[in-house]
């Protein structure tokens, strides 16, 4: 079975490009050219130079000795939190802005939820001297003031999405509408492995540098180029796609995805899409999404603003349906406990999204001779207010 995208833009039963005709020329231009552009030597050279000198790659693969001792196995942390801007998101924005340049685009539009992708987009736009518009849910703008300030300091225009539930899904709708209204000069940088084909594949390719590095770093440290487990959190799923990418066809590696179960999978306040979602079309691709019986999209809930998306990328829907990846639902409480544990055992404060991935060790029951790699997708600075509040750090 193939876990990569096919020539129709599908992963098994999921994917495709369900877009209005108004977007067809833009998406088709991208689809017909992205593989050739990415393969160009000049692109590869520029992309890797920026990843190295600007993003700070390769990011370390750190053996977490005290976590390993606690869970009686070998736990490695892939330190995407050390990327410039504090998360893996910039791997994708660097790649996409280089594609946009080669497509002759002068303006960038993006959506953002918690603001991490917005900051990563604003950053590369500043670097490349491109105009940047970021749509962000009006509610998220209030919740994530520091990231709004970062984007503005970087010169981006932050536009509140005031429709629907005023969060990430609506920001995505608004970014798509903006693209419909500005089809010629604008490229839309989607922040996750979602959206119409070729976005899920293109974003996965740019994030695949994560698993590429894990392979050679493990070879150096352990004498083998694959782990027994790779764990990553999944909202839309871009950091997981990157961490899984080079292990998709490696049967010795189990792929573990941690979804946000919020107050509990069946609490009515959750974002655990594989548990609660049904096949459907959201934001241009067929995948699993949380929806009512009537097919209206449900606003999900999670303590983590990066995981409260009502869908998952089509690649992950296929990994779930085929059984290639195992999905765990992790509650707010479990994530908070894991965040404290990682902070106090390893001196690393993880992002709340990452904390969900760090919460599955107990359930994993990895053996003493096995190797577990967790993708630390982002750092916890942006979540400090939530940590302060929920963990009563200032009382």
């Amino acid at each position, binding site marked *: 079975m193939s876990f990569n995208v096919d020539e129709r833009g599908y992963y098994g039963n999921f994917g495709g490009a*369900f*877009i209005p*005709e108004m977007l*067809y020329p833009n998406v088709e231009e991208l689809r017909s050219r992205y593989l050739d552009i990415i393969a160009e030597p000049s692109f590869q050279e520029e992309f890797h130079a920026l990843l190295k000198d600007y993003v700070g790659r390769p990011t370390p693969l750190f053996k977490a000795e005290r976590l390993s001792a606690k869970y009686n196995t070998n736990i490695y942390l892939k330190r995407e939190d050390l990327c410039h801007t504090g998360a893996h998101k910039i791997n994708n924005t660097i790649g996409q802005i280089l594609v946009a340049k080669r497509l002759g685009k002068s303006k960038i539009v993006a959506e953002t939820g918690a603001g991490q992708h917005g900051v990563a987009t604003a950053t590369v736009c500043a670097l490349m001297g491109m105009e940047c518009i970021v749509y962000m849910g009006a509610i998220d703008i209030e919740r994530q003031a520091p990231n709004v300030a970062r984007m503005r300091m970087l010169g981006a225009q932050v536009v509140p999405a005031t429709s629907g539930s005023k969060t990430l899904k609506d920001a995505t709708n608004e970014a798509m509408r903006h693209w419909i209204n500005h089809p*010629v000069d604008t490229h839309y940088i989607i922040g996750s492995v979602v959206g119409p084909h070729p976005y899920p594949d293109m974003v996965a390719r740019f994030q695949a540098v994560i698993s590429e590095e894990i392979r050679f770093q493990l070879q150096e440290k352990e004498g083998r180029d694959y782990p027994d487990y790779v764990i990553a959190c999944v909202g839309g799923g871009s950091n997981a796609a990157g961490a899984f990418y080079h292990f998709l066809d490696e049967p010795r590696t189990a792929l573990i995805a941690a979804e946000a179960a919020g107050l509990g999978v069946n609490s009515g306040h959750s974002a655990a899409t594989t548990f609660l979602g049904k096949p*459907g*079309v959201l934001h*241009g691709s067929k995948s699993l999404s949380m929806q009512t019986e*009537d097919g209206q*999209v449900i606003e999900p809930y999670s303590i983590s603003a990066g995981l409260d998306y009502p869908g998952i990328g089509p690649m992950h829907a296929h990994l779930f349906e085929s059984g290639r990846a195992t999905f765990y639902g992790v509650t707010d409480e479990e994530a908070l406990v894991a965040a404290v544990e990682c902070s106090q055992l390893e001196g690393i404060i993880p992002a709340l999204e990452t904390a969900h991935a760090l919460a599955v060790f107990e359930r994993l029951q990895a053996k003493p001779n096995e190797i577990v790699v967790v993708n630390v997708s982002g750092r916890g600075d942006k979540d400090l207010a939530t940590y302060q509040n929920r963990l009563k750090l200032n009382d």
Partner: protein
Amino acid sequence: MNRISALFSKATEPILNVYTTAGFPHLEDTMTVLNALQAGGVDIIEVGMPYSDPVADGETIQLSNQAALEQGMSVAHLFEQLKDMRQTITVPVLLMGYINPVLQYGVEAFCAKCAEVGVDGLILPDLPMVEYEASYKAIFEKYGLYNILLITPQTNDERIRHIDSVSNGFIYMVSSASTTGAKTGISAIQETYFDRIAQMNLKNPRLIGFGISDHESFIKASKNASGAIIGSAFVKMIAQAKDLQAEIIDFVQSIKGKK
């Protein structure tokens, strides 16, 4: 013969298609609006199925979708409202909406229900042509439903020819690169585009939509096509109407220049 084909084959004046959101302004207004549209002299009625994430639509239609959903509108309830529609409505009726609610209802069940209540065709902007041909066309045809496809100023000639070959009824010609209700009026550049398409001698007639809001833009658009489609301007009007029926009749007559 499908009512849409019958209409185009006998039409002598510009065809007016008006879009309305089902369950708006109030949940049970749907049939009142449809009857008033017909009484005013509309030629085609396009009934919007509300959706939580209507990406091709601008603010006006989006807000009407949201309001209708909050009032309890659903696909199942719409079919309930339309079940006796053909006792009064004789003009062609299209359902417009997004693919996800149709998928959840079940494509075949949805089409069967459309045929049962007397719907003539569908406009599903996020159902792309390639998917339609591969998985939906046979089902639509089994139930005698026309699939109305869109073209835009950015659609190239080769693709327009392909869309024309797959379409039946008419082609929905989007007047500018935009979401619904984003722009008003018809510019000279748009007239050049209308002209270019007119000269392609397509097998299907065309209706022009997006940016049509009054008699002047309706007549201007109709010079280069069989007629035009009004959506946002109508929804904006009914959102504030005090006497829904009278104001709808008045609106349609003023667009058509019969008043």
